[in-house]
């Protein structure tokens, strides 16, 4: 179902065409003219016509209408014409399978031609015609070609097996082609061996456990021999295949390494990197005291350095891989720091990678150079790069203790430049330096304080506040400084608010006499005037701690902080091992295991570095541990949240008069709503590119991040505050469901866009089952068969729950109605607009794409009626910013009729009350992904002419509100 994979990219189909003297727009007349020329008696004219057809094809024009005429030109002894026809065939055979059969005879005949070039060309082209029917005819010629006397034909045939496998895997197995292919690994010609390996590797990718590439010392020997003699591309295939082999012992490992090493001098960078992969993997097995091991380490550096003098694209890929290599074996490149120095006109993607590696290689020996460079970079033009350079200085300070002082003074110099973003970035990293080296550099605090006013980024503000709080006893005017932040407390971001709260509490604990007022102020701001549960919770905890046991408070708040680790963004060792086995691949560029992103790798084997044989297992593991600082278990900062979680579990009575209106456990239930649901809605996988380097050890918001031990009390509302219920009129008139509203079908895919297939449709939810009702009309002249459907990822994971059931062929002018059941368990990707659905429909002619929008009520679930108390708590808990107001006009319904109608679409009325002639309906909706939407609807009673309703919708995911409103409107108006 390859076609479906194109679906996603098919947004908009906005094809841009260029004009050129060759390509005037396709008019009817032009096709007609070409047709005549193709059928001309004159050979020259024919050839010119085919060339024109090919030219149109290159720019993506549809010239499939000429299929029979072009195929007629195939029977020729003119090789160029034949090749051109073949080019055409490969492109269009799929859309004209019946006609493609016409070509089979010529192929079969050509496979017997005395000229090996023609035999190879025929078998190669035949394999490219992705039509099932042709494959049967292909088997015999292919079998012959695999055993052809000419190696050129054999190597072409080897690739053809992979092509055929892609079309019809079963056929290839049944016909025994896989065994023939395996035999070709022992072929006398190195090119044939290389192609056989490439074909087998590709096939093996779809059969992870097939053991197709059964590597043993004999085959390895053959591969190594072929390695020296085949083309550069063949060398890549063979090296990648070798990398999967597990040598039996260190001697075999060494002999393979010795025979692979010359590849490091190859001009083709892909060969070099594949060789590096093999060596990196196999050297793991070598005893470290072996002379050869040291030699090998030395040999690895120059080729890696050479890659960096290549074009920027190659550099980028090389740098991503070097990043892995220096984490695994820093000793290889430890003397090569300078090649990573940034040139000012390097593309930005190269600059950022180089910077990352510079920090990884930074050591006491080279830190002076590195710092001088980083300082230089901090004056560059590109803001992202400058920021990263400043952060890098901080990371150096943390990594190389001896350099910390110099780093701090460099940072101070940078702060003197007064360039706003440099100053802010510097303050953020100085905070980390303070964490790492407590009580060492406070002398700089005065300078930092001078820049207080220029800080406008939350991270920098939070860092500065942390510093003031942490060193409150040494800053005379700490209270003034913090107070100045407090003025705009509500406008600050959460990060800053939390930090400010903690800092003031610290200040209070250190200087209790002067700051009582201040601490009162911040506690009440945090607990009473804030909607943020994190902030409120933290405020209460401090409040209780301070009021019950100030000594304990001191111990908790001013506790000694655990050290931050020196390397914050090391790749986790097992992942690193796996990635080392994938050097040179996409996985190594993205620093993610292949299983994480490569589609079509149906089941990826996790590759492992071989363990060293011979030595005892325990010795082996410690060996690995010594190979570099990277393996040292990084000192992890225990999440301070854990501490808080424990505190929360203590059953403490509310300390002061300010009783929270809802009990904590209930709030948590509400908070949990936002957990999974929102994540999946926001889930955005686009940011896969580029490892983030900016990792300063985050400690800022450590406190008060939602504790891990959050009770998942969803829906089980504790019986709280009976008085609250009085708000609701218990007799909320809710009638029986009347069934959901189904919109009339609209045309989604007009016939002219889909070669005669018209699709119109609508969506419905019937008894909890989502259905897509489709009407397919054949407006073309020929019969349509083989229908299938697929969806692109979408916001709520809609996916067909079964195949598209069009059992009989659709003859011209025939119309058929189908109902396709849908599930919501498909892959999720946020769409724009949220309810957009991109669909691919396939038939025997082609694949067509369209997008449509579904009413959000499609994913309102039947159990969406919320308990009242939960409703009230949740309503309060959702920040007012998330509330959206709407008006619905021209509605002639009373409130009961309205709620009846809405219930049909799973919008449930929980309660109703009447205030001053207005009916207020409280309603809840739950989406399939667990998101709750709450609504308040106000309807004027008693006045049948008054036709306006007001609607307030609240949801944790505010982008949903608009679509929920549209559902209201749709349901109420129909």
């Amino acid at each position, binding site marked *: 179902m390859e076609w479906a994979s194109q679906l996603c990219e098919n947004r908009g189909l906005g094809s841009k065409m260029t004009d050129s003297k060759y390509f005037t727009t396709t008019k009817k007349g032009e096709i007609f003219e070409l047709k005549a020329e193709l059928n001309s008696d004159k050979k020259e004219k024919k050839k010119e016509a085919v060339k024109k057809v090919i030219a149109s094809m290159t720019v993506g024009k549809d010239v499939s209408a000429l299929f029979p005429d072009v195929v007629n030109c195939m029977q020729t002894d003119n090789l160029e014409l034949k090749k051109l026809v073949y080019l055409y065939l490969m492109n269009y055979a799929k859309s004209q399978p019946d006609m493609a059969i016409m070509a089979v005879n010529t192929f079969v005949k050509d496979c017997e031609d005395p000229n090996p070039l023609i035999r190879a060309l025929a078998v190669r082209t035949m394999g*490219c015609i992705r039509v099932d029917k042709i494959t049967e005819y292909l088997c015999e010629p292919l079998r012959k070609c695999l055993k052809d006397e000419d190696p050129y034909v054999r190597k072409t045939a080897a690739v053809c097996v992979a092509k055929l496998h892609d079309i019809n895997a079963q056929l290839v197995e049944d016909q025994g082609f896989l065994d023939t292919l395996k035999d070709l690994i022992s072929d006398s010609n190195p090119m044939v061996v290389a192609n056989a390996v490439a074909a087998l590797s590709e096939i093996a990718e779809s059969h992870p456990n097939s053991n197709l590439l059964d590597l043993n010392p004999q085959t390895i020997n053959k591969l190594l021999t072929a390695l020296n003699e085949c083309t550069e591309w063949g060398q890549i295939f063979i090296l990648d295949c070798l990398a999967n082999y597990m040598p039996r012992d260190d001697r075999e490992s060494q002999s393979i390494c010795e025979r692979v090493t010359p590849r490091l001098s190859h001009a083709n960078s892909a060969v070099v990197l594949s060789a590096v992969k093999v060596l990196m993997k196999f050297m793991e097995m070598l005893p470290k005291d072996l002379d050869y091991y040291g030699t090998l380490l030395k040999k690895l550096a120059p080729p890696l350095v050479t890659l960096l003098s290549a074009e920027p*694209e*190659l550099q980028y890929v090389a740098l991503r891989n070097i990043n892995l290599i220096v984490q695994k074996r820093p000793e290889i490149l430890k003397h090569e720091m300078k090649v990573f120095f940034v040139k000012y006109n390097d593309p930005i993607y190269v600059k950022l990678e180089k910077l990352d590696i510079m920090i990884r290689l930074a050591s006491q020996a080279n830190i002076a150079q590195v710092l001088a460079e980083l300082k230089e970079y901090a004056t560059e033009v590109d803001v992202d790069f400058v920021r990263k350079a400043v952060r890098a200085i901080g990371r150096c300070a943390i990594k190389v203790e001896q350099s910390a002082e110099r780093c701090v003074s460099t940072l101070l110099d940078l702060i003197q430049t007064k360039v706003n973003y440099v100053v802010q970035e510097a303050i953020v990293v100085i905070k980390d330096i303070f964490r790492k080296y407590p009580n060492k550099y406070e002398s700089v605090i005065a300078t930092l304080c001078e820049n207080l006013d220029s800080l406008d980024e939350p991270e920098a503000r939070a860092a500065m506040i942390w510093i003031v709080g942490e060193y409150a006893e040494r800053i005379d005017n700490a209270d003034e400084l913090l107070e100045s932040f407090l003025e705009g407390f509500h406008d600050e971001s959460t990060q800053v608010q939390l930090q400010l709260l903690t800092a003031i509490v610290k200040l209070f604990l250190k200087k209790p006499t002067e700051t009582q007022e201040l601490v009162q102020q911040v506690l009440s701001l945090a607990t009473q005037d804030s909607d943020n549960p994190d902030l409120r919770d933290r405020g209460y905890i401090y409040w209780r701690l301070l009021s019950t046991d100030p000594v304990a408070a001191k111990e908790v708040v001013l506790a000694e902080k655990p050290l931050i680790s020196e390397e914050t963004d090391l790749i986790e060792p097992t992942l690193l091992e796996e990635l080392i086995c994938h050097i040179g691949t996409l996985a190594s560029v993205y620093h993610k295991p292949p299983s994480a992103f490569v589609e079509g790798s149906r089941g990826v084997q996790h590759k492992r570095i071989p363990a060293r044989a011979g030595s005892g297992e325990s010795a082996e593991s410690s060996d690995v541990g010594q190979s570099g600082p990277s393996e040292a278990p990084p000192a992890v900062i225990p999440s301070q949240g854990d501490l808080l979680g424990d505190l929360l579990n203590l059953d403490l009575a509310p300390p002061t008069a300010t009783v929270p209106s809802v009990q904590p456990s209930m709030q948590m239930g509400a908070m949990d709503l936002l957990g999974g649901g929102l994540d999946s809605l926001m889930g955005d996988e686009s940011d896969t590119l580029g490892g983030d380097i900016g990792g300063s050890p985050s400690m800022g918001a450590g406190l008060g991040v939602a504790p891990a031990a959050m009770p998942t009390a969803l829906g089980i509302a504790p019986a709280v505050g009976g008085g609250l219920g009085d708000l609701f009129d218990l007799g909320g008139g809710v009638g029986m469901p009347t069934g959901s509203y189904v919109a009339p079908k609209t045309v989604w895919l007009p016939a002219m866009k889909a070669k005669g297939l018209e699709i119109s449709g609508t969506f419905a939810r019937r008894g909890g089952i989502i259905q897509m009702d489709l009407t397919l009309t054949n407006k073309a002249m020929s019969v349509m068969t083989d229908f299938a459907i697929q969806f692109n990822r979408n916001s709520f994971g809609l996916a067909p729950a079964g195949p598209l059931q069009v059992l009989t062929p659709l003859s011209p002018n025939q119309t058929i109605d189908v109902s396709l059941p849908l599930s919501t368990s498909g892959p999720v990707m946020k769409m724009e607009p949220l309810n957009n659905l991109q669909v691919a429909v396939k038939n025997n002619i082609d694949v067509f794409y369209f997008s449509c929008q579904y009413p959000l009520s499609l994913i309102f679930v039947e159990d969406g009626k919320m308990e009242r108390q939960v409703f009230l708590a949740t309503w309060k808990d959702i920040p007012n910013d998330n509330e959206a107001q709407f008006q619905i006009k021209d509605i002639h319904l009373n409130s009961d009729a309205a709620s009846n109608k809405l219930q049909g679409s799973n919008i449930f009325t929980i309660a109703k009350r009447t205030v001053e002639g207005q009916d207020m309906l409280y309603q809840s909706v739950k989406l399939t992904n667990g998101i709750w939407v709450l609504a308040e609807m106000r309807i004027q009673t008693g006045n049948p002419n008054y036709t306006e309703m007001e609607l307030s919708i609240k949801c944790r995911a505010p982008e949903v509100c608009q679509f929920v409103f549209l559902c209201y409107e749709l349901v109420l108006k129909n």
Partner: protein
Amino acid sequence: MIHSLFLVNASGDIFLEKHWKSVVSRSVCDYFFEALERATEPENVPPVIPTPHHFLINVLRHRIYFVAVIQSEVPPLFVIEFLHRVVDTFQDYFGVCSEAAIKDNVVVVYELLEEMLDNGFPLATESNILKELIKPPTILRTVVNTITGSTNVGEQLPTGQLSVVPWRRTGVKYTNNEAYFDVVEEIDAIIDKSGSTITAEIQGVIDACVKLTGMPDLTLSFMNPRLLDDVSFHPCVRFKRWEAERILSFIPPDGNFRLLSYHVSSQNLVAIPVYVKHNISFREGSSQGRFELTLGPKQTMGKAVESVLVSSQLPRGVLNANLSPSQGTYTFDPVTKLLSWDVGKINPQKLPSLKGSVSLQTGASKPDENPTINIQFKIQQLAISGLKVNRLDMYGEKYKPFKGIKYMTKAGKFQVRT
């Protein structure tokens, strides 16, 4: 393997597409266009772009983006190297690799692409082999073809395709047998404010043009082979012989090819041939800044430094420059803030200089960034690393070839910080 290739021109139009497996809709390039829009400069487009179902790997050459579409796990370098080969082949066939040239020869381009890749596997990428399969277009051949009705497509299996020397065809004949080697070295360097070298390295290549009859077997030896400890060879070079004797022994391809490239990074071996004295200063509160540049030769082994071109990206706040060069011409583009000075040859007796003032935009504060100065130059008859060819011998054929060796040093990325 490689699924499809799209060629995109500078204005963002797809002007050619080729599919080696099933057809991938060109709308896949929308993701590329998004990345292109985000990039501040054309060359800042990330080389690997993920899309939901494919990966796009692109290179920018001759103002054309070559965008390859892949679907499964494929080594990105493999794809990039292949794209380079495509670019080289176009250049080889059409003289230039430009949108116009590609469009004019669209059928040959298509035939070539088909020959270079089969089902995503590289098939024939050696220019020698390709030229036997598909003859490069020449005006003469086009005329002859129209008269005689013969074709551009070779009818026979290329001889080199499967031999142990796939890079060379058999039956090569020349009346004048000649072999020329160019040793070209580029210096990449970063020089700091005070004039001391931060990094310097040499990227060297030996490019050859060999037109010899038959199957000649050549050996090339160096006076000082120890210089070459980091080398990449053309596949024709016998690696074992190099390892053992430090001699290049090979059967050369026919025509132009790169015999080897090498890298000299050891600092003491890299001479810096020019120096720059600079004084670019702005005063706080003044809208005028001073600008002075003087160039001079440093370690040139007595050779002349020629074709000198100085360029520098001045700070954004600079409005205009009013300078006078002692020789050559200078231009300043007030939009891009690019200053370039075409110096020509450096005369050690009378050092070239560029002096004057630069004006800042009114109200602009003193610029934070320090401009970097980029220098290009050429030195004929000198390999700055000191590499020297000792002798070239030919075995296997009887005639006496004409031999020639040329040396040249150029600036690569030669940057001076201020």
